[in-house]
């Protein structure tokens, strides 16, 4: 087991280098120059442009730039400096990540609790009315785009009912983050519900469940322990990848509710061609993906004793 974890952690190194290099090259390939962009419609003075390009090493070949960037990042934990603002990228990341973490964790909690609960209920009553209603609602959640849901939520809960502010003014207040988190969670919630439902409906007829019932175990134990534990594997797989998606893919939701998180920062750095910021952000997201996947793989063994890692 320990060996397995070590091996997986080692495998992350090439993936990590590959993704960062790829992103670095892609930003480089985009038309436009971050330094020139500072001057907008005006021409700017060539001396200052040259001085800025030199300071940020943009006058060097791309692979040298990448080498310097990686060297600073790995040896000193230094993600470079933003060209426009002159702020260290670590500071920018430190601003954006806690906000997104809060939003994503709230959305994740909603998705896990509601999604699994609904899935279990629907799965146990497969084919009956409850099941059909749940299927219909989740279908709706999947098919309606996030921004439409966001607008509807704002219109109904903020403008007409006046229950809450339309936008997030204080990102440390979980009450304000609730609405965006629900909007962000809906699509994933629907998938979790459907995965759970199918899995539960299938395993309900499995031999070990019949045995458990025949042994005379109480229903709560049959469902809660025997059925749930065996039905969770596909759900956990999905949830693992979804952590990453919630963190990086919240661009639309963040913009809709004026939350200054990772999504908005990625978009902004892309528009301004702030390569260092972009690579820093994505590097951390890649790490989160990789580790979430590792966790999922390890959780398999917890859920299903037949799976072993050596």
């Amino acid at each position, binding site marked *: *087991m320990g060996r397995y*974890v070590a091996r997986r952690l080692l495998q992350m190194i090439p993936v990590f280098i590959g993704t960062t290099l790829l992103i670095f090259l892609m930003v480089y390939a*985009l*038309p*436009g*120059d*971050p330094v*020139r*962009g*500072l*001057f*907008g*419609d*005006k*021409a700017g*003075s*060539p*001396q*200052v442009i*040259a*001085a*800025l390009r030199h*300071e940020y090493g943009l006058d060097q070949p791309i692979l040298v730039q990448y080498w310097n960037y990686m060297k600073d990042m790995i040896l000193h934990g230094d993600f470079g400096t933003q060209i*426009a*603002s*002159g*702020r260290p990228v*670590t*500071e920018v*990341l*430190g*601003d954006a*990540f*806690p906000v997104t973490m809060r939003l994503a964790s709230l959305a994740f909690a909603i998705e896990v609790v509601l999604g699994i609960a609904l899935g279990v209920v629907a799965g146990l009553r497969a084919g009956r009315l409850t099941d059909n209603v749940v299927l219909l609602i989740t279908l709706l959640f999947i098919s309606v785009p996030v921004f439409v849901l966001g607008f509807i939520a704002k219109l109904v809960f903020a*403008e007409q009912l006046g229950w809450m*502010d*339309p*936008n997030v*003014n204080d*990102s*440390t207040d979980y009450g304000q983050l609730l609405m965006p988190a629900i909007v962000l969670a809906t699509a994933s919630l629907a998938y979790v519900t459907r995965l759970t439902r199918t899995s539960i409906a299938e395993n309900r007829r499995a031999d070990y469940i019949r045995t458990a019932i025949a042994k005379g175990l109480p229903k709560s134990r049959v469902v809660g322990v025997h059925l749930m534990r065996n039905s969770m594997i596909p759900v956990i797989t999905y949830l693992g990848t979804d952590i990453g998606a919630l963190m990086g893919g919240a661009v639309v939701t*963040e*913009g*809709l*509710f*004026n939350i*200054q998180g990772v999504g908005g920062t990625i978009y*902004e750095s892309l*528009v301004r*061609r702030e390569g260092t910021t972009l690579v820093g952000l994505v590097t*951390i997201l890649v790490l*989160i993906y990789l*580790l*979430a996947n590792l*966790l999922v793989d*390890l959780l398999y*063994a*917890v859920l299903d*004793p037949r799976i*072993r890692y050596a």
Partner: protein
Amino acid sequence: MRGAKSAKWVAIAAVVALGATACGGGSSDSGDDSKAAIDPNGKFSIEVGEPQNPLQPANTMESNGSIVTRALFTGLVDYDSSGKIVYMNAQSVDSKDNKTFTVKLKPGWKFHDGTPVTAESYVKAWNWAAAPANKQTNSFWFSDIQGYADVAPEKGKPKATEMSGLKVVDDNTFTITLTSPIPYFVYKLGYEVFSPLPESFYKDPKAAGEKPVGNGPYKFVSWDHKKSIEVARYDDYQGSNKAKNGGVIFKNYTNLETAYEDLKSGNVDVLRQLAPRDLPVYKADLGDRAVDQAYSAVQTIAPAFYTKQWKGIDPKVLQGLSMAIDRNTITKTVLQGTREPATGWVAKGVLGYQPSLGTDIFTYDPAKAKKLIQEGGGVPGNKISIQFNADGGHKEWVEAVCGSITKATGVACTGDSKADFQADLQARDAQEVKSMYRSGWVLDYPFNANFLRDLFGTKSSGNQSGFSNKEIDTLITQADAAKTQEESEKLYQELEKKLPEYMPSIPLWYYKVNAGYSEKVTGVKYAQDGDPILTGVQVKK
């Protein structure tokens, strides 16, 4: 037992995961709403994006940073709404030959840290900002001053660190010598680049960009990145525009739709601009708190004169294209009344603006448009395209303009979309525009030369189209050599009247401010650059 052991490993992996992703930077508390505000000391909030640059006066070029910088710094002069000069920190700026200017400061002004504002505060600040080593994006503004070429030579190492054209006479007097006379140089001095800096700035310019110390109507309080910037009234301020409120909170918004929602729900007080989505309803929503006024900016489409198509073109063709654009209908329908049809190259609110140039090229007339194009030999290829950046909301009107041209003259016209402003700029800089491109110009200083000389001179910094005409260049030299500012203004007006004969670009429309404010504030006025005048805003009890 197997299960339990696995669980332990999951826990360890989780710790590793958290360790790797924890990246410091706690969140701090955000500004609390002071709802029980009293009249003169009440603070209000305004919608602003995150400033792109540190808050150094010579380093802010985009609007988010400059509105904050202008609240913190006051320069020598400012302008009133008709474009006339108002002396701020300067008592007088005199010149006999328009080449050497003597600046006298009003005594008794102090920076927010208590140190006095002296002639040295200006001269040292300008020398610092002009040096390429300090990488100030607006440094080219000092290029009119004698000795700039030594401080910032185009090639090689700087020969000097101070511009020879700047001389301190005494504590409250200094002189500026230019390389060649500019009758309206005083106008340029109103730009925030020419702000003074306190001595403390040079110890750590970077930190000063995060916590600026200025001499303006407001002093800096805090900057919570990507959340808000707070400034408070500076009580010892000596200028005529002392703040009528207790301070301003610049609230960060990434899009205009959310800001408008917050305005309606009372979470932000003043907006600078509205999103297209809210334009049809904002007047009904806000009543007399809706703002709809012109500001000094113009939108044009410019032919790339370096292309085969437009090289040596007969200006009649461009006149014809101009007459084929139905400006009235497009501004009313597609642009929802947010623009006003242009009647010249110089925008409204600028000194020297002329309501009419005595030409009909801005009137929609399909028959005459067709005739003019024919007389001029037709559009080469009978096909044009207009390059624009897709992230700026230009697509709709570019299509409308194209439609109008094609309908009126039969010239095929398409939009040439670039993904974003960066890509658009690169194509323009590299002279890769295929036919025509969209170009906008917001005033730097309210004098008509800014819209003419800085765009259409052969060597002007804003000339990206490759337009070059000897007669225009001569007229510019003449206007710059004028004895007085009034004379220069007049000569530039004459130059503008001649432009229809050369058609360096096709003006489309002037911009308008479409914004609004909350019930909490009154006295919200907007300046020529489209930004609200912060010091005049009053907060209700």
